[in-house]
């Protein structure tokens, strides 16, 4: 177990380094000169040359990369090209908001998906399974932005119950909880659809296992078989899938944040992509990737704890 953990952590570290290399390469394929973007079209060539040198953009790519990595290890992600702030401070402002959105939605989604998936599996190929499965497919298949906008039309424009936009001021989110309802609802609905599909197929897989027949033959009640035997076993793979879904949920969060002007990392990334703001793009990608890798690491460890049958051979 300890050996497995160490190997798994090393692997995660390599993945994080891989992420930084890939992002770095991609960003340097971006069109447009970032220096021109910072200084504006009327800057003199001398100014451009000077700032290029100052920001180190004239050095060879590998050197730039290593310098950036060195700073990263010291938690220095540089300065935004467009906003007068360090990337660290921008991330520090936005990260808690995104965690709030993604965390709340994920937990709500798990709590809703488990009973839904169980119900769908038990009632397989009956009208209520078709209705629930169909509904979850619709939410899963709907572009997130469409769902968000439809919720705004219904609850903000028509019923006037909830604000269509999140407050922008620092720390204002928690004091205006009703502004959180629509973004969280959007992300939750999309995620529930995904999770309940996992849950349904995991339950179905376990319902046909031999141990179910054995338990039934012993005279264990259906209810007890379902909740004590099948549900527990079905939850194990779902745990891993939830861990693996984190990047997908964050993708959904990017869209949700953009629709609701929610001051999170996704919105920050979206704006940065529009103005070639390299340091911010890099910073967001790295933080998100680290979070993702940590998430799947935790899911794997939980998996190992929950299922002692797993053997760790490389």
């Amino acid at each position, binding site marked *: 177990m300890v050996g497995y953990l160490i190997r798994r952590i090393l*692997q995660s570290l390599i993945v994080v380094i*891989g992420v930084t290399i*890939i992002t770095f390469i991609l960003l340097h394929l971006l*069109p447009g000169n970032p220096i021109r973007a910072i200084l504006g079209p009327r800057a003199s060539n001398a100014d451009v040359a000077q700032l290029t040198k100052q920001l180190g953009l004239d050095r060879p790519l590998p050197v730039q990369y290593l310098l950036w990595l060195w700073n990263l290890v010291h938690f220095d992600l540089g300065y935004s090209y467009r906003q007068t702030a360090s990337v660290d401070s921008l991330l520090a402002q936005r990260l808690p908001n995104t965690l709030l959105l993604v965390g709340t939605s994920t937990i709500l989604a798990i709590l809703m998906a488990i009973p839904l998936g169980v119900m769908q599996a038990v009632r397989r190929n009956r009208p209520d399974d078709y209705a629930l499965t169909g509904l979850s497919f619709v939410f899963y298949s709907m*572009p997130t932005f469409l769902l968000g906008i439809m919720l705004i039309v219904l609850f903000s424009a028509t019923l006037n119950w909830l604000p269509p936009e999140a407050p922008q001021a620092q720390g204002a989110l928690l004091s205006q909880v009703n502004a959180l309802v629509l973004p969280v609802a959007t992300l939750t609905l999309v995620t529930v659809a995904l999770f309940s*599909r996992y849950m349904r197929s995991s339950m179905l897989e376990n319902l046909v296992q031999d141990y179910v*027949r054995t338990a039934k033959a012993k005279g264990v009640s259906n209810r007890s078989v379902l909740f004590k035997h099948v549900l527990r076993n079905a939850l194990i793979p779902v745990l891993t899938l939830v861990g693996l879904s984190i990047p997908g949920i*964050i993708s959904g969060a990017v869209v949700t944040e953009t629709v609701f002007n929610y001051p999170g990392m996704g919105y920050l*990334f979206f704006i940065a992509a529009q103005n070639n703001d390299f340091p911010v793009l890099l910073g967001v990608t790295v933080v998100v990737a680290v979070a993702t890798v940590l998430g*799947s690491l935790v899911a794997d460890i939980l998996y190992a704890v929950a299922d002692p049958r797993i053997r760790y051979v490389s």
Partner: protein
Amino acid sequence: MSAGLDAAGGAATAPEGGEAYQSGSLWRMIVSVFLENKLAVVGLGLIVFFVLFSFVGPFIYHTQQVFTNPNIKDQGPSLQHLLGTDDTGFDNLGRLMLGGQTSLEVGLAAAILAVGVGVIWGAAAGLAGGIIDAVMMRIVDSMLAIPFLLLLILLGTIFSVSVPELIIAIAFVAWLGPARLVRGETLSLRVREYVQAVRVMGGSQRRVLLRHIIPNTVGTVVVNATFQVADAIIAVATLSFLGFGIAPPATNWGLQLANGTSYIFAGYWWLIYPAGLCIVLTVVAFNFVGDALRDSLEVRLQRR
């Protein structure tokens, strides 16, 4: 196709509690499990409908889709324009057919490209093993750790986004899933007796890969490709909404929907809901079919 289906339909019993299927060939059984799933049949019907709608529709419902006509912009549905006109005066129903062509083409092409690359990558890594496998899979892991939308936005800013570039961008993000799946399958396939037999007979690594490993992953791959089409259509729509998609005058359902959402408070519902419905129904259809395919192929796996 249908003659075989009818015969198989009668032979199958409901898969309640894992009872065995009594008779029929393997393929018949797969088809019968597929057809038993009503949602899958609905999905297949929807896909056929939307393909006909997009590609045959324009021959029946003639509209002018080349020149804008501001005189008739933003009109509601009428007999002349069944679904109204959009903000540049194009007939909306005709536009949906045109957009459907792009959406379906991009979805299908991206899925095929992604799955193709993924299969080769995954099978090669799984077969090679050792350090090569480790390096190849860490590349996949690293890219998977970046949420696909962030990658797509980065790619969207790099490319000026024409249809072929969009296909490549989506495939660039989407090949990771199939690569992982196929690598996993390869690991279990390469120790099978028949693969060892090929080796003993002097079959080359290439032959093992192309003739034995890859054909055996077909089930997994087809299921995954079906989901990939659905995901690609959504990805195109999302990119359009975020402003990194295909530029007009080319169009797709996502772009139409994204355009329409700016008129949502003006009450131009015909610019939003038809396009939204096209996307949702098509994506749902591909997901239904993919799910049913997976279920029916699992029957095959259980029997193996």
